[in-house]
């Protein structure tokens, strides 16, 4: 018996039958030797346990802990009753739930296995604290934070609407709406900075336009109070660093963050500038084929002025967005200054 030949046959058979129903699998496997059949059978059995949708970084935790991954409708967390799972992120799960009077809330629950990481707990508490400290119509309101048998939770106002990602992807946005959204977004950021809170993860997925036209910034998950917050140096390579994909986040990182420098309010301004550029032009200023291309683009590629991509762009806004994208943090306008420019153009009463 030749192990190498066997392995090639195992590989071929696995791919051939893996997507077929059981009976057809058996027919195709019938001619193989017993040892090959046993090996393919064992791999198929593993495959059928449907681990494949899980990202690699969560493979570890999910396999080991074997814990119920989600709460079901009707379960209680604190005084809230779960209705449905909305999304699962690196930090936890977000549910639609309602309080005893029937008001909808978004309930964010820290995944129990992340309680192992002081960094994750800290980040979660900081999010709760930072968002609670902010009271602004354009920043999502925190109703309550607490701990429950299901995990630590944050109950937030339920915002129904479209994310900026969806709005940008839906096609060109007319000038008056673009100005309105830019004004609301910069105003929210200015309020946070005024309270000495940085967002640190501004991206289109974190901004929602409510159905009544009010824009809300969500997810102060990476936010830090500018005051003295005592933090554990994190050493959790496992939960924090192996998560693999750069996905959206890199695209909205400022050059100084990429270099590993400490974030400032100007870093938030840069991230928001990237997003506003995309909103006006439909194009990402640092788009690239690979993360390395994006990295290089943020570091050194020349950015075309939005007005070269969109006709009728007000010149002052054109200049403002380019200044928000200045590689020198000190040369960028403050969020407050940016919001003042958009206010002048706003036609809203």
């Amino acid at each position, binding site marked *: 018996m030749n192990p190498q030949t066997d392995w090639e046959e195992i590989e071929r058979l696995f791919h051939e039958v893996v997507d077929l129903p059981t009976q057809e699998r058996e027919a195709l496997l019938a001619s193989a030797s017993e040892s090959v059949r046993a090996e393919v059978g064992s791999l198929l059995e593993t495959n059928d346990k449907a681990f494949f949708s899980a990202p690699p970084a969560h493979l570890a935790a999910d396999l080991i802990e074997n814990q119920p991954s989600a709460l079901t409708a009707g379960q209680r967390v604190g005084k809230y009753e779960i209705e449905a799972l909305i999304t699962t992120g690196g930090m936890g799960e977000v549910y639609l739930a309602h309080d005893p009077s029937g008001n909808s809330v978004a309930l964010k629950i820290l995944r129990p296995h992340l309680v192992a990481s002081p960094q994750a707990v800290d980040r979660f508490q900081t999010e709760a604290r930072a968002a609670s400290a902010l009271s602004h119509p354009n920043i999502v309101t925190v109703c309550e934070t607490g701990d429950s048998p299901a995990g630590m939770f944050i109950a937030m106002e339920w915002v129904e609407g479209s994310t900026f990602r969806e709005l940008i992807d839906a096609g060109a946005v007319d000038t008056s709406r673009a100005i309105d959204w830019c004004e609301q977004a910069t105003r929210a950021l200015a309020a946070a900075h005024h309270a000495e809170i940085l967002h640190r993860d501004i991206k289109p997925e974190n901004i929602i336009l409510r159905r009544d036209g009010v824009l809300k910034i969500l997810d102060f998950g990476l*936010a830090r109070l500018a005051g003295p917050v005592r*933090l*554990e140096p*994190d050493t959790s390579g496992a939960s*924090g660093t192996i*998560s693999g994909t*750069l996905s959206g986040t890199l695209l909205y990182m400022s050059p100084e963050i990429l270099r590993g420098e400490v*974030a400032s309010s100007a870093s938030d301004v840069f991230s928001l500038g990237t997003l506003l550029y995309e909103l006006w032009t439909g194009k990402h200023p640092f788009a690239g084929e690979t*993360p390395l291309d994006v990295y290089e683009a943020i570091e050194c590629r020349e950015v075309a002025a939005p007005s070269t991509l969109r006709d009728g762009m007000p010149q002052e806004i054109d200049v403002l967005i380019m200044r928000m994208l200045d590689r020198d943090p000190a040369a960028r306008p403050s969020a407050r200054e940016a919001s003042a420019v958009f206010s002048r153009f706003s036609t809203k009463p």
Partner: protein
Amino acid sequence: MNPQGEVTSLLTAWGKGDQNALNELMPLVYNELHRMARRAWSGQAQGHTLQPTALINEAFLKLAGAENASFENRCHFLAVACTAMRQILVNHAKSRHTGKRGSGQVMLSLEDVQPAVNQEAAEVVALHEALERLQAVDPRKSKVVEMRYFGGLSIEETAEALGVSIITVNRDWRLARTWLIREMSSGRS
């Protein structure tokens, strides 16, 4: 020769099949990535997280320089850097697994959290060991998993760096993951 020139010529030499070049390259890449990873880990306390891919890209720019970023150089660098990243993360997990963690900063009692910390770290080590067994059976599949899991590369980037098609990487990834999951689950039960 300046350091960037040295790394570039080592990459080129290794690309032409010179194994000694790899031996010289690996510690350079390992040390640079390790330094950056430590900075990123301590930096996380201040709220910024760097992913493996970002570290690798940053290391490339630092070690080889943007002007040397030819397609071949990048591919060779990615292969070395993903291996180095795997070693860093596994060593880190091992030290974490055995190391003591005493801290009064955590809000929850340590009895509650300690087992889970150990489990996650143990899982990284278990994957690393299963991957070594896979390498004996099928080296390319083990490389695919290394690049995807430890280096954080996408399917497309992995295909590019290994010079194979996306379909091949997809198939390798699917079978390799199944194989690894089975190895890791049977080892535990």
